[in-house]
C-alpha cells in the first residue's frame, strides 16, 4: 500500500488552504480513480448500492471497445484497398492504431484539461462523463480530420456544449455530437465529401454508401460489407456488427434504454420504406447504428420519462432517415436528428409530466 501512503502524505497540500489547492480537483480525480474513496453515508439511507457513475461509464466504455477495435482495422483496410498495398491483417491494424492514437491523445488531453479546469473553478469533483465523450468523439470523425481541428472541436464541445450549462448532467446536447456538428459547419470541406474517409492515399475518392445513395439513388456496396463494416466512413460507425456487440453489453448492464434503441430502429425502418433502397439499408449505412446505440441513449440529453423515451427514439430514427432521403444537401442525417431531438427532449418530458399533473388535478376535482 505504498501508493496509498503517498496519497495520504500529499493530501493535505491539496486541501483548502494547502499549497497546491489550485490543483485539488486533479488530485481528487486521480485518487478516486485509483481507490474507491472511504466516504461513508452521512444522511439518509445507511447503505448504498455498489453502482456509481464510474461503473456506469465503464460499462459504456467497454461497449465501445468492439467499435474501436474494428475501426482501427478498417482504417488500415480501407487504405490498403485504396492504394492497392496488399497489407496483411496486423499491418492494417497497426496502421489504424497509429492513426487513431493521436486522435485519442488530443481528445483526452484537451477534454480532460477543460473538465478539470471547470471542476476546479466550481470546486466540485471531476465528473466521469468525459471518459465516454472522449472515447466517442474520434469514432464519429473522418479519419483524415486534422488534429488541431479535433482539438478545437473538443474544446467547443466541452466548454460551450457542457460546462456553460453547469457540467455533466446539465447539458442539453450530446457533447460528442456537438463536437462533430461544430466541425461539420465550421469546416465542411474537411468533414464531408468523398475524399476524407480514407487515410494515407492522396486524392483517392472513397464514397460512403450514403453519398452514393445521395448521388445516384442506389448503393454499390453489398449488404454483408455494410453490416460487417468493410466500407469507408467515420472511424467507429462502419461496422454494425461491432456496434451490436456494444448494444448487447449496454442492454445487458441496463445502462442504456432499450426503449430508445427499439423505437429509433422502428422510426428509421418506417421512414426507410419511402426510399429507393431497402429500408433495412438505413440501419447499416452511415452513423445510424452508432448514433442509435451510443448517442441517442445518452441518459442526460435523451428524454427522461419512460413514455417520452418511446417518442424521442422514434422521432430520431424517423428524422434521420427523412434527412437522408429528402434533403439533397446532407447525405447523413443521424447527427442532426439526434441534436434536434436533444433539443426537444425536455419538451417531450414536460408533456409527459404534465399528463401526470393533470391526472392528479382531475382526481382532486372528482372526489
Amino acid at each position, binding site marked *: 500500500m505504498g501508493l*496509498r501512503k503517498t496519497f495520504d502524505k500529499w493530501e493535505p497540500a491539496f486541501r483548502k488552504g494547502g499549497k497546491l489547492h489550485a490543483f485539488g480537483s486533479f488530485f481528487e480525480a486521480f485518487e*478516486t480513480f*485509483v*481507490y*474507491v*474513496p*472511504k*466516504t*461513508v*453515508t452521512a*444522511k*439518509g*439511507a*445507511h*447503505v*448504498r*448500492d*455498489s*453502482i*456509481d*457513475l*464510474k*461503473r*456506469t461509464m*465503464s*460499462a459504456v466504455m467497454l461497449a465501445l471497445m468492439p467499435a474501436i477495435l474494428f475501426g482501427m482495422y478498417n482504417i488500415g483496410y480501407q487504405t490498403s484497398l485504396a492504394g492497392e498495398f496488399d497489407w496483411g491483417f496486423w499491418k492494417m491494424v497497426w496502421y489504424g492504431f497509429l492513426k487513431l492514437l493521436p486522435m485519442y491523445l488530443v481528445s483526452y488531453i484537451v477534454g480532460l484539461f477543460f473538465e478539470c479546469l471547470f471542476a476546479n473553478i466550481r470546486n466540485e*469533483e471531476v*465528473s*466521469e*462523463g468525459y471518459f465516454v465523450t472522449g472515447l466517442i468523439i474520434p469514432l464519429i470523425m473522418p479519419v483524415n480530420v486534422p488534429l488541431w481541428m479535433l482539438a478545437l472541436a473538443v474544446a467547443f464541445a466541452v466548454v460551450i456544449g457542457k460546462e456553460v450549462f*453547469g*457540467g*455533466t*448532467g*446539465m447539458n442539453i446536447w450530446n457533447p460528442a455530437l456537438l463536437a462533430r456538428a461544430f466541425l461539420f459547419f465550421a469546416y465542411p470541406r474537411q468533414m464531408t465529401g468523398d475524399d476524407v474517409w480514407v487515410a494515407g492515399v492522396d486524392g483517392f475518392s472513397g464514397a460512403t454508401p450514403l453519398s452514393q445513395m445521395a448521388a445516384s439513388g442506389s448503393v454499390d456496396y453489398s449488404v454483408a460489407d455494410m453490416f460487417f463494416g468493410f466500407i469507408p466512413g467515420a472511424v467507429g460507425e462502419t461496422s454494425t456488427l461491432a456496434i451490436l456487440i456494444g448494444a448487447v453489453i449496454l442492454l*445487458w*448492464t*441496463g*445502462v442504456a*434504454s432499450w426503449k430508445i434503441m427499439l423505437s429509433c430502429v422502428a422510426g428509421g425502418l418506417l421512414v426507410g420504406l419511402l426510399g429507393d433502397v431497402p429500408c433495412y439499408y438505413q440501419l447499416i449505412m452511415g452513423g445510424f447504428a452508432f448514433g442509435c446505440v451510443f448517442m441517442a441513449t445518452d*441518459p*442526460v440529453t*435523451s428524454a*427522461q*420519462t*419512460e413514455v417520452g*423515451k418511446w417518442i424521442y427514439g422514434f422521432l430520431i430514427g424517423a428524422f434521420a432517415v427523412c434527412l437522408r432521403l429528402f434533403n439533397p444537401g446532407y447525405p447523413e442525417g443521424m447527427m442532426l436528428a439526434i441534436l434536434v431531438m436533444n433539443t426537444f427532449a425536455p419538451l417531450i418530458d414536460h408533456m409527459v*409530466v404534465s399528463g*401526470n*399533473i393533470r*391526472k*392528479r*388535478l382531475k*382526481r*382532486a376535482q372528482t*372526489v
Partner: protein
Amino acid sequence: MSEQIRLKKGLDIPVAGAASQTIAKTVSADIVAIKPTDFRALVPKMVVKEGDRVLAGDPLFVDKNRPQVCFCSPVSGTVDAVVRGDKRKLLEVRVKADGKMEYRRKKAAVPASMTKEKTAARMLDMGLWPMVIQRPYGIIANPDDSPKSIFISAMDTAPLAPDYDFVLQNRFDDVQTGIDVLSKFTKGGVHFSMNYYTCPSSEFKKLRGVIFHEFEGKHPAGNVGVQINHLSPINKGEIVWTVDLLSVAMIGKAFNDGIYDATRLVAVTGPAAKNPAYVNAIQGAPMSAFADFFDSSENVRLVSGDILTGENVGPEGFLGFFDNQVTILKEGDYYETFGWCKPFRTKKFSFSHTYWSWLAGRKKYDMDTNTNGGARPFVVSDVYGKVLPMDIYPVYLAKACLAKDIEKMENLGIYEVLPEDLALCEFVCPSKVGIQQIISDGIDLMLKEMA
C-alpha cells in the same frame, strides 16, 4: 372481502443479519430517552425538571403549540438530563429508571361506549396522541380534525424489519381495542393492509371493524404511504391519518389495562450483529443495552430503525420513539484499489446489472456504510422509477423541492410522499443524491408556507 394489490416495482435489499425468531433475553434499560427529534416540526416544551420523579406514563414534555399533546416517560424513575443542542434545541429527555416500573394507572375503558371527544381526551391524557401521524407531511395529527380515513400497515417490508406477527404475539386484544379507538375518529374507515402471502396464517385476519387490503410485492410495498397511494391517494386539502401497528397495540393496552406500556420486542439485526435475534426492551432503550450483540472493538454503526430510514444514534444513543429494530453495520471507511473497475466484485450488491449480483439468487450481502462512489449530478434517468411503485415522477418532484417551487411540488405529489417512501431511490441512485433529505426539506418548506 379484501382487495389484493400486486406491486411490481421495488427491491428487497438482500442484506445479511435477519433476526431469528427467538427472544434472546430481556435487556435492562438503565437510562431511557425520549427524543422530540423523532417528530417532524415539533416544538417541544418541557414540563419536568432534572431530578423530578416520574412514573411510567407521566408527561415529560408537551407540544408547545398544542399543550394537550404530551409525551410520556416509558419508565418510572427520575429525570436524569435534558439534553439540548444548538440554539438550545431540545434533543433528548433522559430518565433514569428506578427498576420498579411503577405505572401511572387509569381505569380500564371500553372505547365502544365512549364518544369521540372522550376517546381523544383519554388518548391525549395518556400520551398516546403523538402516535397518530397525519399525512400529508408526516406530522402529529390534530385531534380536532376528522380524517378521510385511517391507514394501518401490518406489513413491514423494510430491510430486516421485525415480523409483526412475532412481535405482537398474544397482543390481539390490544390491537383490536386500538382499532376500536381509532375508528371513532373517521367516517372513512380504518384500512388495514396485510401481506398477501402471510395473511392467511395471521391472527390479525380475525380483526373486526377494519377494511382489509392485501398487498403483494417487494419493499416499499409495506410502506403505508405507498399503500395509500394505491388505495385512496391523498389530494390537496385532504387529510388521512396513519398509525403503526406497534402503536395501535400500545393504544389498545392503554384502554384495556389503563397503563402506558412502552415495553416491546426489539429486533437486533444487521450484518455486524452477532446472533441477531429479538430482545425484550422498551421505547427509548439505550444502545448500551445491546452491547452483547456487537464487537465494540470494531468500528460499527448503530442504527435505530432500518438501514434505509433509521437514525445513526451511536453507541451512546437511544432507540427512537417508534422503533422496534436496531441495525448494526460496519462502517465502510476503507479504500478499495480500482474497486469501480473490477469486473466481478461478487461481495458487492447492486440493483443494477453492471454487477453480477442480479444473477446470484438469494445470496445475502455483508453490507457496510461505504457510499460506493462520489456524489454527482443526476445523470442516469430511469433508476428511481424501478423501485417506486407510486404514480409519481421522483426526479421531477425532487427537482421541484430543490427549486422550492411550491406549486410544482403540489402538482407533482408532495402530499402523497414522505422521505421513507423514496428511501430506495436513494439506495439505488448511481449519483448518490440524498433524495430523502431533499424531500424532507421540501415538506418542511410546505409546512412553513402553508401554515
